[in-house]
């Protein structure tokens, strides 16, 4: 146990010494890895935010029925009774064209324009809560209601949220592929860093092996080095994302306010941040392992 501890502390100290011993080189590799990793991690962060946003907006599926402009009270009453009897309609709300116009004036700051209108351009409308219907059943219901007399247009309000959801799924797959490719690049970066380091430590490795060092002993400082550098790269990516959020969050909130949407960016969750660090450390470890194994294979006695 004591031997094990002394070996590992020796390797860790050696790795840190090497890292500090070449500050510019270490820093550059770390930044390269940080940039490489901030790409998939940053996109992932955006997707997480969009996901949370779409979940918050879509809620229960809603159907909007817009009536023809010339629909009179009789038609409205007719539709109302049809809806009340319909088994799939959980609840509904009637919004008259006058109240719709009043709300438009109040909400959107378009009061002046609305006031200048000679007549109300808005139709009467029903907003239907369809409960827990599947997207297919919802679409059926929409098509059915569309055919009612006096209906100009029936619209699924949650359709765009569903499209967004599907888009998010696709994007997440793309992020995964990107992360896979960039992980490979990261392993290659570490592999080369370690290879260069091995070249400068060649004598030490050779002498150590000649006087009884195991491959594990040779490998250990390099593995620590790779893992530390990989983790530092992950941390660099985390900070790059922080910086990005800091820079665009206010602007984005401003932009979204114009669309009457309240969207703020949140950083990666603690779990995701930890996974990022661990994953990048693992990649560094793998790159270092491959590099040292490659060198050691050449030094076996023949």
């Amino acid at each position, binding site marked *: 146990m004591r031997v094990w501890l*002394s*070996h590992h502390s*020796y390797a860790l100290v050696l790795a840190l010494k090497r890292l500090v011993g070449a500050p510019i080189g270490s820093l550059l590799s770390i930044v390269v890895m940080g940039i490489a990793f901030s790409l998939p991690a940053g996109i992932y962060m955006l997707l997480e935010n969009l996901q949370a946003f779409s979940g918050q907006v879509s809620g229960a599926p809603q159907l909007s029925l817009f009536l023809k402009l010339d629909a009179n009270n009789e038609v409205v009453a007719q539709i109302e009774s049809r809806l009340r009897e319909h088994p799939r309609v959980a609840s509904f709300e009637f919004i008259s064209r006058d109240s719709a116009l009043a709300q438009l004036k109040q909400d959107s700051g378009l009061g002046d324009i609305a006031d200048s209108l000679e007549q109300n351009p808005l139709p009467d409308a029903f907003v239907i809560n369809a409960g827990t219907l599947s997207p297919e059943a919802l679409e059926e219901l929409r098509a059915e209601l569309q055919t009612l007399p006096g209906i100009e247009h029936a619209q699924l309000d949650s359709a765009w949220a569903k499209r967004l959801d599907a888009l998010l799924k696709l994007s997440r797959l793309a992020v995964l592929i990107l992360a896979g490719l960039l992980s490979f690049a990261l392993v290659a970066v570490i592999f080369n860093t370690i290879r260069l380091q091995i070249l400068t430590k060649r*004598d*030490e490795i050779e002498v*150590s092996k*000649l*006087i009884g060092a195991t491959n594990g*002993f040779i490998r250990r400082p390099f593995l620590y080095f790779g893992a530390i550098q990989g983790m530092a790269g992950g941390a660099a990516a985390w900070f790059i994302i922080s910086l990005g959020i800091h820079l665009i969050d206010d602007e984005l909130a401003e932009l979204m306010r114009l669309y009457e949407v309240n969207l703020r960016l949140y950083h990666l969750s603690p779990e995701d941040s930890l996974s990022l660090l661990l994953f990048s450390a693992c990649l560094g470890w793998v790159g270092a392992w491959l590099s040292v194994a490659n060198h050691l294979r050449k030094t076996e006695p023949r």
Partner: protein
Amino acid sequence: MISFSQVCKRYPNGFDALKNIGFTLEAGEMALITGHSGAGKSTLLRLIAAIERPTSGSIIVNGQNVSALKGGAIPFLRRNLGLVFQDQKILFDRTVFHNVMLPLQITGFHSKAATGRVRAALDKVGLLDKEKARPITLSGGEQQRLCIARAIVNRPSILIADEPTSNLDADYARDIMGMFKSFHQVGVTVLIATHDVELLGSTPLRIFALNHGELTA
């Protein structure tokens, strides 16, 4: 104990470095391997430490069959050997002290006890006052003594030296040989390759003479 039987070493280019070598060196014995340059002295020593593998034959070191040793077991064989290399293999990026410390770090020696051992080894070769010096500032003889200190710091049962006096003047060389004799006197098995037989003067020793890869005496 070191025992060779029917050992041959042929290099990939077809050159036979060693042909049918057989001898036994008992524990606590001291012997010289002599021969012209290229006779196979270094190759023979390298086979003992499993730095190279024999083409055929068997080599027994401390009861282990080195020629059939698995890669993972080689480091533990080498830890029982003190090796003094022809090209010294001193690390110039660290002090004399840390050069001698390296074998102990490799075996995972506790650092306080290790310091004592390093000092003892440096004392034996007369370099104690240079422990903080850089190896590059040492003279040729001192560098050779540094190598010996590194070889004995693990207290090996077998000491193997390849041309330890090759680039030293006669006084230094006699000094170094005297050191090996003193290790022999405390029970270490010593095997030295040299082309300089005069050095040992009157001391009666076993001598293996190599000639073009064959033992002649």
